[in-house]
């Protein structure tokens, strides 16, 4: 059968990010996908040697706009481990709350983009409408919608008082009921099921072989969640690891929706348990040493390695983001898929190409 090669990207209407795939097609079926990345590469890790380590925090925050909070938080965690300081408990709980808010907004964003990818624009609009409420909460507490700049080495810069926290929790009830009717469409609607069910199957063995992380891996039945390591205040909070055995796009949708509702619960627990106290301790001097931080981003496990040699600039700062691991799974599930499903499959790994390419 004759093969055609269709170039997909870097500018295409469905994905907000530039990636380029050369899709080798036989009729309508994808046989091979040859990737070509690098459109978003900025060379950020090299900047670590040029900027003061306190100012570099603001560069690290801007690795990605969607996962921005956790990048900043991981950098601060790494620096705090190098300095060997322990931040106050209230700061840990505040960081947890913001982490979960960040996860909420990221998953809702993903749900909307997924709906847009299979053509259901009304669902896209509804998901983002609910997401705006989360962004309003983040703006009320930090001042910025996506890039919050609220982490500092030694704690956090802003506090959330009792009134604000209770106000947030009160809004969750209404949001949960809206979301339940929305997610019912994602999981139960016939047309949506037809697009998602048995599409992009990644078996459990393949998931382990290709190094999938995050919801991609948990939808294939692997029960791992980096939050169980207990950084920030996660050690004090009760939550289950959400998995599914479906191994297809519908399963990934289920896992992420489950994580949305779980995040509401985690925030409720954190708000109930948050202790009083300071929010920041002052850390002076230059760091010397190295640290590795693993954190559960909305997209999966991210690994941060920092090395400092006693000067103002870090010697090395390396990030291995979750999408970087998930790209191999993407290249595994693309062959055999229909051409029309390609945007959907790219979105099902929750790509964050700017994180990957830095």
């Amino acid at each position: 059968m004759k093969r055609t090669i269709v170039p997909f990207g870097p500018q295409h209407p469905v994905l907000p990010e530039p990636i380029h795939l050369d899709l080798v097609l036989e009729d309508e079926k994808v046989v091979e996908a040859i990737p070509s990345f690098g459109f978003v590469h900025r060379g950020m890790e090299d900047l670590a040697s040029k900027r003061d380590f306190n100012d570099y925090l603001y560069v690290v925050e801007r690795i990605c706009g969607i996962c921005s909070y956790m990048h900043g938080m991981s950098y601060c965690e790494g620096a705090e481990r190098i300095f060997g300081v322990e931040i106050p408990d209230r700061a840990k709980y505040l960081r947890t709350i913001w982490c979960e808010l960040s996860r909420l907004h990221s998953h809702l964003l993903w749900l909307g983009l997924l709906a847009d990818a299979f053509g259901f624009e009304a669902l896209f609009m509804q998901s983002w409408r609910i997401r705006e409420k989360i962004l309003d909460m983040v703006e009320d507490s930090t001042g910025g919608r996506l890039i919050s700049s609220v982490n500092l080495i030694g704690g956090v810069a802003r506090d959330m008082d009792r009134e604000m926290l209770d106000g947030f929790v009160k809004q969750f009830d209404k949001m949960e009921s809206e979301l339940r009717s929305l997610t019912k469409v994602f999981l139960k609607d016939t047309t949506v099921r037809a697009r998602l069910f048995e599409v992009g199957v990644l078996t459990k063995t393949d998931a382990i072989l290709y190094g999938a992380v995050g919801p991609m891996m948990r939808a294939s039945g692997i029960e791992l969640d980096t939050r169980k390591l207990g950084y920030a205040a996660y050690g004090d909070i009760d939550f289950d690891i959400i998995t599914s055995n479906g191994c297809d796009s519908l399963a990934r949708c289920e896992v992420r929706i489950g994580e949305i509702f779980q995040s509401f619960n985690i925030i409720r627990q954190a708000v109930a348990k948050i202790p009083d106290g300071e929010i920041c301790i002052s850390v002076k001097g230059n760091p010397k040493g190295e640290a590795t931080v693993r954190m559960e981003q909305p997209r999966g496990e991210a690994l941060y390695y920092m090395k400092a040699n006693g000067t103002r600039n870090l010697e090395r700062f390396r990030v291995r983001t979750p999408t970087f691991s998930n790209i191999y799974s993407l290249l595994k599930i693309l062959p055999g898929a229909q051409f029309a499903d390609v945007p959907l499959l790219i979105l099902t790994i929750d790509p964050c190409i700017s994180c990957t390419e830095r």
Partner: protein
Amino acid sequence: MAGIFKFTKFALRNLFTKPATRAYPSVPARQTPRTRGAVQVNIDDCIFCGLCNRRCPADAISVDRAAKSWSIKRMSCVQCGNCVLNCPKKCLTMEGAYSAPACEKRSELFRKKESPIPAVHTLAPAPTDGKAIAPDRVLVIDMTSCVLCGLCARRCPTGALSVDRKAGIWTVDRAACLQCGNCVNGCPKKSLALVPENGHPQVETYTRSAAPATSEKTETPITAQPKGEIGITVDLSTCILCGLCVRRCPTSAIAVDRKAGTWSINRQSCVVCGNCLDVCHKHSLSKTTEGIDTSGIQVYAKTVELKAEATSAAPAAKSEPVVEATPVETAPQLPAPAPSSEASATDAPVGNGIAIDMDTCVLCGLCVKKCPTSAITVDRAAKSWSIDREGCVLCGSCITACPKKSLSEAEIPLLKTYTK
């Protein structure tokens, strides 16, 4: 059947709830107390330390200490808040302001307003010993001694005074007057005083009487009248052309050209206030009635050589015109001389002058700042300290200012440059 009415609930709800849209240009944008906006500076508190410049990850802020200005490139600021966090004076804020889109990249400049007190230096600082600031007193003037030089108007921080020399009028706006006493202390004729209030009007104008009141003082100035015979003259044998009189002259009547060796005075502008006499360290200036030509500018040229306390090999040092502020002189590089050093190897004259101990000198430059005649220059890169012996008036300000006590006045070979 049940399937048909399932959607009715949603349809009715959508009909009767208001839309979720915020109609942005018609309604204002959502602002919270913490919303990050454009960085604003309270320029009056700013000390121009430049920390915000160094901390900005996007290099959007620039600070010019000399010009006292702070500017920010609006299209480069990422609103991270690092500058706000690090400002030692807490004069930066980020909440609430909006940076609008524009068709070109722009920066905004904020400059500290200059203090209205003019840069007329006095040797003695104006005492503000509390007695000058007295709200129950008012400013009055004795027009018989006033020469309408205008120094008081220039020293007034609020602009409450105005002097019209042509019309012979001196005006005070007592509502603006702070009773600070700056004018009283600065008046060369001591015509001003702060007296207890006694029904003085808020704005008062004093006029010089046509005939000056006779007084025992012989230095009654005559500005409104045709200039008489009296005027300022200079004794160039002692004058060192330092230029202090130029700086003190309130009417900028004097000009000094060091290269050409001339001192000139514009008789039309000179009000014979005597400020220059007060400031001259060499007492070269005096008031005289002889040889005064009041029609225009009179130039006195030095024909006599500059001061040279003669030693064996004087000529090399003498006739060189004094060059300002070049640290690399033609003088040879010499080690720091001790008062009784082997400087006879050079041909520098020995005399009373400022001596420096280069071992303790740290080249901080404080002596440069304090020297009233700008005779000293310090070159940190070349590690040299130079002094213009002709310009030095031996006032001793540098000796007092030196934190390392490296300077002293002694009988030494008068070298010009010393290096570490």
